[in-house]
């Protein structure tokens, strides 16, 4: 979990420091136990099931909704908002199927609470489309057959998108490293490397 916000700046009203102090790092698991987060804006303790109002910025659009504090961003994206391009693979930060961009950085949506994502810009694979047309990274995956079953593909696409936003001309080694957080059990890695390189070219052209 990278530290994205300064302490006390969390828009959901929780101080990040006090939140982490009470909940611990394994937030999803711990929130279900007796350590409960402080209720927004008061000293009262919220239960894990108490619905909290949040606003999420996803693919440039604002979504206002009620969430349980323990809900992951992944759960909210898929099961509450219908962004099912973001896949569920392990729900424990191992496989990268749920990779989204949070403020341009690839992050695991399963390891991010929905309330944590408030105040950030979330981009899912749906957000890379130009209307009904594939974005450059997606197009590169299509051309190089960088997929088989396709289940990890949106996560791989987001990892490449994140890599290229930070480093528009990655070396082969940087591509391999940039994709190391995303498992592909079908084993299409060599084609994903090719697609990433091609995507870099397509993105330059698009500019």
């Amino acid at each position, binding site marked *: 979990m990278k530290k994205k916000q300064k302490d006390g700046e969390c828009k959901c009203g929780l101080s990040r420091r006090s939140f982490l102090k009470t909940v611990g790092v394994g937030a999803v698991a711990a929130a*279900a136990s007796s350590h409960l987060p402080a209720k927004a804006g008061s000293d009262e303790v919220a239960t*894990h*099931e108490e619905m909290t109002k949040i606003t999420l910025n996803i693919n440039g659009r604002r979504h206002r909704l009620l969430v*349980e504090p*323990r*809900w992951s961003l992944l*759960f909210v994206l*898929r*099961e509450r908002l*219908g*962004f*099912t*391009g*973001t*896949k*569920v*693979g*392990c*729900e*424990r930060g*191992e*496989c990268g*199927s749920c990779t989204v961009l949070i403020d341009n950085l690839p992050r695991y949506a399963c390891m991010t609470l929905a309330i944590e994502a408030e105040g950030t810009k979330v981009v*899912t*694979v*749906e957000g890379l*489309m130009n209307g009904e047309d*594939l974005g450059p990274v*997606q*197009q590169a*995956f*299509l*051309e190089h*057959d960088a*997929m*088989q*079953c*396709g*289940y*990890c*593909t*949106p996560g791989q*696409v987001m990892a490449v998108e994140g890599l290229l936003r930070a480093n528009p001309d990655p070396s*082969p080694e940087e591509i*391999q*490293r940039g*994709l*190391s957080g*995303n*498992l*592909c*059990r*079908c*084993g*299409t*890695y*060599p*084609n*994903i*490397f090719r697609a990433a390189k091609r995507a870099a070219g397509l993105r330059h052209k698009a500019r």
Partner: protein
Amino acid sequence: MKDKQTDYYVKDVQVPETPAPKKAPKAWGKTEIVGKPIPRIDAYERASGTAVYPSDLTLPHMLYGAILRCPHPSAVVKSIETADAEKMTGVRAIISGASSEAQLNWPYSPDVRTRLFDPRCRFEGEAIAAVAAETPYQAWDAVRAIRVEYEILPFVADERDALKPGAASVQDGGNTAKKDMYARGNVDKGFAEADAVIEETYRTACELHTTMELHGCVAGWDGDALTIWESTQGVYSVQSRVAEVLGLPLSKVRVIGHYVGGAFGSKLQPGKYTIIATLLAKKTGRPVKMFLSREETFLAVGNRPPAVMKLKAGVKKDGTLTALSFSATGSGGAYPAGGTSLLDWLIRDLYTCPNVRTETTDVYINAGPARPFRAPGHPQCSWALEQMLDALAEKINMDPVELRLRNIPVFSQAREGKPPYTSTGLRECLEKGAEAFGWKEIRKKIRETGTDGNVRRGVGVAAALWFAGGGGPPSTIILKLFSDGSVNLNMGASDIGTGTKTVMALVVAEELGVKPDLIQIEYADTGTTQYATPSGGSKTVPTESPAVRDAAINVKRQLLSMAAEDLKTDVSDLTFRDGEIVSVRDPSKKVRITGISTLRKRGVVVGVGYRGPNPAGKVVNPFAAQFCEVEVNRRTGEVRIVRFLGAHDSGRVMDRLTFDCQVFGGITMGIGLAMMETRVLDKKQTGKMVNKNWHDYKIPTSMDVPADMVSAPVELPDPAANTVGAKGLGEPVTIPTAPAVANAICNATGLRITDTPMSPSRLIRRLAERKEG
């Protein structure tokens, strides 16, 4: 071996017959579209995120299911208390062994059935109770609140301990699940004739499928009619099993399985979870989404069984194999599950050898039942046999490629009647693969580099065949050609990511001259598509493509007779050319397909195609050879795989892009077997699995595979196999990978690593032992 055993992918499934096609067409010669590198036709859906996998589905009013599983490898459930859990927020139903609606039998095999929630739990992860709730969080809260009292029983967790005196009994009647023997010739005589004999014991660790999409389904009822969206390789096998367990007519069970996020054999059948989802849906009157957690999939949805293999082999100085003696133990877990399925096949049939004896023993242990895993038995056997070939080559001072070339089979020695193969590309795979890899040059270079330095290079080769891969009936395809020339293709088969849909579109495009992107495909739905066996056994392309071709030819025939009316000529005078039907005698007489008056009136032509039988008395098998180069750090035991080359004979290449992708994927999975994958059971204290997640159970990442992977297909279209000339590919690609790596490591270090995984710790230990020794 009887053919019944060949079809592991339809094990225990009633398979109907389809009529034979009217007249087999001539095999294709050169093709226009088939074989080109064409992006898969559903790449858009997969890359855009619009493909709806079963786990993506949300239905109105849907609940979420979760299963309580036994935490012990062997136990009896004494009591279950669900009252507290039932009162929890959002909980809508709980079922367990005590529930009247759950009094069903589950067929672990045709002979071994248990209750759906059986109090006797024989492996960690057996289902005990299940919950449906408004959110998955609430469902899991409730699962944790169910109180269960267990009587914990003794267990056995290692196949090497299962038959020891005093070992806990997994099933009544002891721990021997199955014993198979095979013999031809006289191995004693064979060993006496040999110039060199080597004996070695090998072991491959248990591997888990760990598909990216979790196992599970969404199930919902409309009155007495059930619909299941299952993550599966075969909708019809799910339908028949669910109908059997629930006692429903087939027409009341509709199974839809459009997309599936990885399967590798573990989704050929439904699971208990499927039945549980239907029961929870029935009880609540609401659809239920039941997808397992990642940890559960490590325990309860199959594995590649571990295998201990003792192999003795004899060879003459000229490279002739004289005898192979093989004795192996595997374990399919706690129930009959094919723990030694096909484990000795490569010994019996890959190389010419007159004297062969094999013996395999499948034993029960208290672990999750196996499910078929990409080429059952073969990667394990290949691990032993291909390392042995390498060792024999060294002993008689012969190039390992050359030794294999000396023993190429021309017929299947282990099948009754010794039938010939329709095509044997093994020689070409080895020769062309070696050439493309630069085998001789790199071997020479490595020899000349000497033995100095801590980082050493090595190269290795391994070859393989795959027992199945010819496909066969049944298959029925319906093809609809619309008045504007576009097409709808209806087939029951699943596309598990191998590119089935794309290949079938290319077959239609080849026959009818329709652009692939004008072909809509309706598939994998028991409600709307035709019967198909599940996509497994590397048989989907050779099964379905000839049926698709037959349907396309059927459409063509109808178009020709319609055109004959328009052109006032005889059908025999007409031929297809570039989207037109032309008279042979008078080429000025022609009509565009879209201009045929009957087609315009009717709006559609419907053609049905069937899969014809395979050639009698012949065997259709794919062949393979793989080559790899490694770098071994002798200080750290780390291995870097520098490059890999796969030379595969799978008959005609149907789509070069998806073909190559399959080769890369098989090699990657084989690298997993070679380097890192191993199920670890705490066999002394608890019997529990200690690495049931992807942090501790490693699979290859982008850092573990070489970017330099080459697919060099040995394209030998096989007109005798079927009317498109293709053989299977999905499984042979992963068979020889691990021993190729082991042989390369041996080439680099002189160390023969007989057990998987070849982790740095294992390697460094062996290197240290050698130093001390």
